[in-house]
């Protein structure tokens, strides 16, 4: 980061800190650091710089008077002005819109519109909508996302109707949501599934509907928000991918080991927990991907292809 960019960020953070500095309050440095998204040491430096700020004649009552003591800061004299939040600068509004788009909110979503109207004077929502798309706007997922986020905070059980891509089946389950994760733009919830009696990962765009059961749960275990399965101990499917086939990148087969052959074909060893998931992708190769191993996966490929053909004819 350049010195000028550093100064700009330092200044923006100092200005953002001002409304938090209420006279007579003792604040935790860690909380202020979290509030402005910066390390505690940098926020301590920002606060120290603020303690030299004020307005003429720079007498004690016209200065920001604070003292940092260990991990807390005590405010003796609040800022003489700018003690309430200022509007978002255009680039900050753009960041907020992009983040909400990533969470599934479109540019014309009511929450986005309301936030921009209240918090940003200069931004042109139409310009942002025309130039930026940081996620797929999908209203049903937005509602489910918001419900799960709130349920995680409050410890509320949720009943979901879910489509399992692994098995290709629909089911109703009651889950205790633990964590949300985004992987390559798709949102997932990790939750204790009461039907399975274990922690499971559910992709939000495969949840048909969701509603709170009215019951609460106590979180009994720590859960990583990672959704990449640990391939250790899983059976390995061996695939042959012809040149030009879809899904020939390593990112398409999590945990796979790739081996390029002289004729341009690629052999991949893919750890799997669901034979049907692998089979569906093999079948989607329309003859350009072969499952060599395992017999379970080959059987699943046949089943997927037969069912799809039956649906076409039916």
């Amino acid at each position, binding site marked *: 980061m350049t010195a000028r960019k550093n100064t700009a960020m330092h200044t923006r953070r100092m200005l953002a800190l001002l409304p938090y500095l209420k006279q007579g309050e003792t604040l935790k440095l860690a909380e202020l650091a979290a509030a402005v998204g910066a390390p505690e040491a940098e926020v301590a430096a920002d606060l120290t710089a603020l303690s030299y700020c004020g307005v003429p004649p720079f007498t004690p009552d016209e200065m920001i008077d604070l003292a940092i003591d260990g991990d807390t800061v005590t405010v003796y004299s609040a800022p003489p002005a700018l003690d309430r939040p200022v509007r978002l600068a255009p680039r900050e509004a753009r*960041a907020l819109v992009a983040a909400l788009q990533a969470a599934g909110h479109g540019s014309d979503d009511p929450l986005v519109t309301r936030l921009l109207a209240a918090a940003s004077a200069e931004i042109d929502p139409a310009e942002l909508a025309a130039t930026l798309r940081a996620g797929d706007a999908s209203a049903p997922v937005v509602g489910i996302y918001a419900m799960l986020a709130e349920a995680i905070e409050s410890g509320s059980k949720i009943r979901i109707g879910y489509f399992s891509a692994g098995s290709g089946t629909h089911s109703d389950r009651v889950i205790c949501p633990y964590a949300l994760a985004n992987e390559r733009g798709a949102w997932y919830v990790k939750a204790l599934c009461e039907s399975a009696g274990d922690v499971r990962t559910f992709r939000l765009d495969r949840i048909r509907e969701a509603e709170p059961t009215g019951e609460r749960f106590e979180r009994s275990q720590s859960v990583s928000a990672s959704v990449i399965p640990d391939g250790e101990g899983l059976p390995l499917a061996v695939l042959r991918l012809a040149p030009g086939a879809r899904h020939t990148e390593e990112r398409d087969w999590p945990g796979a080991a790739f081996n390029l052959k002289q004729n341009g074909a690629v052999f991949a060893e893919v750890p799997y927990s669901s034979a049907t998931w692998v089979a569906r992708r093999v079948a989607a190769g329309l003859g350009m991907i072969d499952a060599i191993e395992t017999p379970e996966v080959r059987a699943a490929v046949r089943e997927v292809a037969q069912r799809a053909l039956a649906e076409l004819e039916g």
Partner: protein
Amino acid sequence: MPDPGERLVNLALFLAKTPRFVSAEELRSEGLGYPEDQDEAAFLRMFERDKEALRAAGIAIEVDEDECYRLDRAGTFATEVMLSAEETATIRTAVAALATDESFPFAEDLTIALAKLGQGAPAPVSVATTLVDEDPRAQGASAALTAEAIASRKFVAFDYTNAKGESRMHEVAPYGIFFREGRWYLVGLDTSIGEIRVYALKRATNMRVNATAPKTPDFERPDWFAVAEYSLLPFQYGPTPFEAVVRFSAEDAWRAARLSGGNGTIAEQPDGCALWRIEVGDPRGLASWCVEHGPGVVPLEPQTVVDIFRVGLTEVLARHDR
């Protein structure tokens, strides 16, 4: 010399505390932190930069006909936003997680936005995002540069390696940026061919923004441009677009809206099925997509796609007969 940040905060506080218009010279003499031994030209340059920095931080400054300055209170202070518990949770979780995702190009600005909204406290729930899985930092940095160039309407230049492995430098008037399935894409007018193209930032290196005359735009974006029209599903790209129809079974009809990504139109049928009409550029890609997102998803039209679906799956069966 005092910390430039202190000078800027002093200037902002002074403008906020003073209801009248104030000249640059008066601001200089108020002891806000401008060097006393600075000549007039150097002071004016510094003052210009300070005004820009404050505006970039959300402080709106009015100027009167005598070149005097005053805080624009209506333009500066945010009004209170009432949020429901679910809206608060949405912002605290998704947005707070993205602020620490190095592949999210607006993370730094997002932290300040959250602080201003009073939503910057740590999310009390476990949440993590990995928007980009390949070179997340590099893609995030290229996307950030691109976004700046879009806002300032400056050309960008970069070295690009296409899917065939061919590399060359491109100069592009950047019109928009979008994210899809773990990758950031730039849409813009390639100046050497005079056409709008989509570039995967994963394939772009040495991205730079035209630094000459930074306050003067290099181009005007066409009024009709909308980045959403370029953010297509993979099978929609192709040389000869045509319309296709995909049927979702009654049990799977609800999935149509989720899978369409807002592209095409979906019509529910009396029997509960959903028909999705969509523009397609790659017939084989659509047939493959239908298999991948099944069961319950089959192509209906045109016959070309239906045939590819049928022949391809028959081939799959033949290759996995035992």
